[in-house]
């Protein structure tokens, strides 16, 4: 049960940290506002599910809305700063995350909202001798599905070749006919949408609250660090390990659950200082 919870948690982290990692690998931007996009996904999902009466429609539309926010962030704020020291991007995106958090408080208030689980996914399923909440199982399978789609996109299509090349050498990519600025925008939009999908999908399980962006960004940063900066494979492995650590921590270190995250991170970095899948260049 705990292992399964950890797996679900880990797969959600794959979606959030995966976008964070690709954005870092390609744009060289450590996007502190990535958690805000996840949070916006949750809030928009909440509002849209009430407005439309359909959780599914909300799950579809919230990422579209957040993708648009992502476009504005990249196009109007990040773009003028490319080529500057990474600290500038970190400060900028940190500022954006503060603005987003306050905007959310302004619009939705300080309350915690719970999103209703869609009727078809309430209850409990039994399989392999364990009883598991249907909705959690849905999240697990849903995020695995999205992750597989992303994997196919990255490994099998020409867009994927462009993205992988971009994490190696932007200049050579640009010199081979690719408008790398457009690719940056596209990657940022995709990362934003992934974060929002995660935020909207977990809302019925974890509720929606103003602190949720900060909570997830810390976990996602830890994932990206233990996985090895900019490595997609490392991010997946890191997310799955951290998912387990968080759940185990919650069960066996009651009261110190958060400590588990840092124990795992410190332990891994002790043996692999540049992350599990270190980049050779």
């Amino acid at each position, binding site marked *: 049960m705990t292992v399964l919870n950890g797996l679900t948690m880990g797969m959600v982290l794959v979606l959030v940290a995966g976008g964070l990692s690709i954005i870092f690998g390609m744009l060289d931007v450590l996007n502190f506002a990535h958690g805000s996009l996840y949070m916006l996904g949750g809030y928009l999902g909440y509002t849209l599910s009430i407005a439309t009466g359909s959780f599914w429609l909300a799950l579809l539309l919230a990422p579209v809305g957040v993708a648009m926010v992502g476009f504005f962030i990249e196009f109007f704020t990040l773009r003028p700063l490319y080529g500057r020291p990474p600290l500038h991007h970190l400060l900028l995106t940190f500022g954006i995350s503060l603005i987003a958090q306050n905007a959310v408080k302004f619009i939705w208030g300080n309350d915690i909202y719970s999103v209703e689980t869609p009727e078809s996914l309430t209850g409990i399923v039994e399989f392999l001798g364990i009883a598991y909440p249907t909705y959690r199982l849905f999240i697990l399978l849903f995020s695995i599905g999205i992750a597989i789609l992303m994997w196919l996109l990255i490994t099998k299509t020409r867009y994927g*070749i462009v993205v*992988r090349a971009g994490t190696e050498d932007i200049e050579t990519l640009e*010199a*081979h006919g*690719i408008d790398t600025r457009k690719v940056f925008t596209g990657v940022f939009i995709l990362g934003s949408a992934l974060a929002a999908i995660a935020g909207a999908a977990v809302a019925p399980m974890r509720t929606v609250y103003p602190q949720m962006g900060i909570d997830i960004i810390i976990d996602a940063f830890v994932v990206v660090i233990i996985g090895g900066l900019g490595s997609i494979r490392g991010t997946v492995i890191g997310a799955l390990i951290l998912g387990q650590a968080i759940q185990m921590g919650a069960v066996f270190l009651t009261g110190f659950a958060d400590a588990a995250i840092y124990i795992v991170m410190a332990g891994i970095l002790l043996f692999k200082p540049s992350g599990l899948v270190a980049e050779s260049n």
Partner: protein
Amino acid sequence: MMSVEDVHTYYGPSHVLHGIDLLLEKGDVISVMGRNGAGKTTLMRTIMGLTPARQGTVGFDGRDITRLKPHDIFRLGIRLVPQGRNVFPKLTVEENLRLALVAQKSADPRSELEKAYDRFPILGQRRQQKVKGLSGGERQMLAIARGLLGKTRILLMDEPSEGLAPLIIRELHDTILEIKTEDITIFLAEQNVKMALSVCDRHYILEKGEIRFTGTTEEMSANKDIMIQTLGVSA
């Protein structure tokens, strides 16, 4: 076809090219020679738009391309084979090639890849391998094959023979001679004087960011002093 006029290029405050003038006509095969640090790579980067000239103009087919972005310059048919066999190590051979076709919508990827593998059969054998495992010579072939995909009009080659074994250099030499017969204009940067003199028809000698000498292969050979002075060799 391509003209470089009074080009000055800087890296930040450091002034590297001091007023370069060049002319390439269609079908020309021209070298630029010079010692390490003379500015050959910077000249290639300036033409490709990677480090645009701060002063002067680069013209192509009568059009001013000095400030175009590299991806637009690529689309005009100008191809850079970068120094140091700069291909993508984590991609496979075929992915490296396909990358150069992404921006060339009119080219048929399958037949273009086939042509590349016909020219360099070893790349065909290794099409699914990661570039990481390739030898220096194979990487150079890949970089050249990539530069020839689709509608190439000018091939800029930056020291392709650097660090290669003599046998591989001979192969490279034959490859360039073959490309020469295909109506592609070649601009070759080299420190290997023998190579440059044997494949190119006209030469520029670059020293400290300035052109010191221009001439045909015969004129160069007749002027051994200048080669000893600027390149430290006699060929």
